[in-house]
């Protein structure tokens, strides 16, 4: 089978089926025609098809959905573009990515949203769902035309990784988004408390003399956002939590009826502040990698379902952005190709169940942006088929993303995506 071949019927046999509702079973056979799953079981197995794929030993899951991906288009072509980064997403098993509004120009108008959607339909390997900028230019001061953004196809609005100037504007952002039933996605960070910091304010910053971002910069913002969401009634999605206390606050707010969901970046589940101990700029991310206790609490939050989704927070950069002393480098890592492997390491270590990992990559994020990723008859054939037993070693040469600053370059990883289908079309096929 080759990537890109279209309009051919496909039969998938063997393997373990993860149906998107949290259960695994032996694959009874899947028949895919014209982009949809048209039969399962005996009907599928007996069908005459153009192509057949033997998934024995593999896991067949709905395609992964990423709520936070930076495609760098329009703008920053030297860091990546829709073609390169959606292909990287396909390599990682993702079939849908939400495009961050942090582009140049910022996605704060229907014109930019159309530009992204047109680019995605002509050059994208996977589905691209734009997230609109809730404030003009992401400046955190003036409201964007939210009705226009929604009509143009934005599935939610947020302020990227940037904050809102003050609580009064935040409250108005939420109230206005509520008018249109739009989910607001915010990365909680109190700008005054975070100030010029770039690393977790803890043991490593103290030892290395790095400028810290205290945990309270996040938790104070989380509490403020939860209270404002409660008051305005907006659907709030908290993006990229980094601290254990935030998880506790989300759980408590949900208990009292606040419409809140949350996600965490995979690297927050795997690495801690110690990764910066060698001044390694690849681990310069925002929010910063925090303590081991925070990491464990975040993993527990995913396992308990308090955190709905795991995201890549993929931020490809050119070499120059990371080739400088740590404080002068840009935050973010190239991650979308290794999300599954990192997650499977958590499964292997017993910290996270495979069901919860896959739910947090499929049903959890899907629910937040209005998708129902399932493997049933009639469903769109967005699938990720991976071999949990295979290993691979990413290198700068083999990574598809323009960003080569992946934390796991040259490290042996387990769990390899073998085939990614978007509407029945193979967009990534491992030929090895």
């Amino acid at each position, binding site marked *: 089978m080759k990537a890109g071949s279209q309009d051919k019927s496909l039969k998938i046999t063997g393997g373990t089926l993860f149906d998107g509702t949290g259960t695994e079973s032996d694959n009874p056979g899947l028949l895919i025609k014209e982009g949809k799953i048209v039969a399962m079981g005996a009907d599928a197995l007996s069908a005459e098809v153009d192509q057949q794929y033997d998934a024995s030993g593999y896991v067949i899951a709905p395609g992964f959905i990423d709520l936070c991906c930076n495609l760098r288009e329009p703008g920053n072509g030297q860091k990546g573009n829709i073609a390169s980064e959606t292909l990287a997403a396909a390599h990682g098993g993702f079939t849908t990515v939400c495009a961050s509004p942090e582009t140049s120009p910022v996605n704060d108008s229907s014109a930019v949203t159309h530009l992204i959607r047109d680019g995605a339909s002509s050059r994208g390997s996977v589905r691209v769902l734009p997230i609109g900028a809730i404030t003009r230019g992401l400046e955190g001061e003036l409201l964007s035309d939210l009705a226009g953004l929604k009509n143009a196809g934005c599935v939610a609005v947020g302020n990227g990784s940037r904050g809102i100037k003050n609580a009064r504007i935040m409250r108005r952002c939420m109230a206005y988004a509520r008018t249109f039933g739009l989910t607001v996605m915010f990365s909680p960070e109190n700008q005054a408390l975070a100030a010029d910091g770039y690393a977790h304010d803890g043991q490593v910053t*103290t030892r290395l*003399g790095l400028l810290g971002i205290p945990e309270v910069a996040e938790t104070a913002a989380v509490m403020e956002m939860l209270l404002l969401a409660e008051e305005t009634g907006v659907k709030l999605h908290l993006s990229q939590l980094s601290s254990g206390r935030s998880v506790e606050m989300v759980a408590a707010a949900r208990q009292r009826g606040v419409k809140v969901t949350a996600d965490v970046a995979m690297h927050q589940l795997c690495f801690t502040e110690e990764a910066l101990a060698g001044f390694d700029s690849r681990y310069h991310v925002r929010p910063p990698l925090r303590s081991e206790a925070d990491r464990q609490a975040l993993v527990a939050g995913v396992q308990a379902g308090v955190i709905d989704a795991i995201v890549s927070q993929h931020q490809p950069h050119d070499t120059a952005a990371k080739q400088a002393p740590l404080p002068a480098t840009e935050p973010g890592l190239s991650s979308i190709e290794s999300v599954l492997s990192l997650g499977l390491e958590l499964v292997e270590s017993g910290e996270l169940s495979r069901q919860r990992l896959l739910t947090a990559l499929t049903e959890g994020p899907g629910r937040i942006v209005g998708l129902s990723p399932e493997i049933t008859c009639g469903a769109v054939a967005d699938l990720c088929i991976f071999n949990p037993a295979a290993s691979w070693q990413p290198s700068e040469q083999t990574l598809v993303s323009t960003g080569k600053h992946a934390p796991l370059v040259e490290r042996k990883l387990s769990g390899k995506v073998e085939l990614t289908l978007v509407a029945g079309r193979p967009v990534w096929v491992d030929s090895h």
Partner: protein
Amino acid sequence: MTAIDPSPNHLQLTRGGQLRHFLTLDGLNRELLTDILDTADSFIEVGERSIKKVPLLRGRTVVNLFFESSTRTRSTFELAAKRLSADVLNLDISTSATSKGESLSDTLLNLEAMASDMFVVRHSQSGAPHFIAESVTPGVAIINAGDGRHAHPTQAMLDMLTIRQHKRSFAGLKVAIVGDILHSRVARSQIRALNELGAEEVRVIAPGTLLPRDVEDLGCTVEYDMIRGMRDLDVVIMLRLQKERMEGALLPSEREFYRLYGLNQDKLALAKPDCIVMHPGPINRGVEIESAVADGPQSVILNQVTNGIAIRMAVMSMAMGGQMAERQQKQMEREGGRA
């Protein structure tokens, strides 16, 4: 689950345990620190000769790369290199290449192309010497002359040399570091050195706004009250206070800081009678320390300056020795492989 080796030793020590670079005191054991102090001791008499030179770095090129200005540190590094017979190039980068938009990596490539053997680096960003050490061609030694808030290892070692000269041994010593611990690269290196060399207690004395989070993890005790903190001290190290600390609500005024944390004769009298007074300089008289103490019999501040040259000679010669040993080792391995 970290994928990297975060310890500094893979970078600054050779496989044989010799210095290759001198970036931080983290990970350096007591034996190596003592070796640096002993080597520095042997260089002190060079400064007392009529011809103040030894040929250890003859034919070598040392570049002083100062991305932030520091007359005293640069002068002592320059003198140290010259006393080791090196050719020295002083570059004030803050007013040249990088201010024209050239990246640090490009600046380094240009300097390496001039066949430099050693860079002495001063930079306002923590970790800059680490970045440079990872970027340069093997064989070029990097000496950290102070980076951000991270480390100032040669300053700490000259302080250790000064303490050893006056106290003979570190065992049983009670040492206090007073002032702006939060922003001090010197304090971090001093705490590390004192702990490794066996001091009984390292105490930091400062208001809460000038202490890093969980500072005790560095290996020290915390005291907010200087009157209590001065008791039983063998050594008191005063830190320099930058004027801008009054901004951003770190301190209300220099006057209040001096009243609470400035070292005067009354406070010094609370320490042991033979307590020595140190300061990395330059001193703000009447802010951190009163003149009668700075110039008094217990002050060893000028000894610190003198010792700075000897320590820098020791570190430069040892790092160059480590680089040469490593080169020879690799050469032998290559020849062994061919045979």
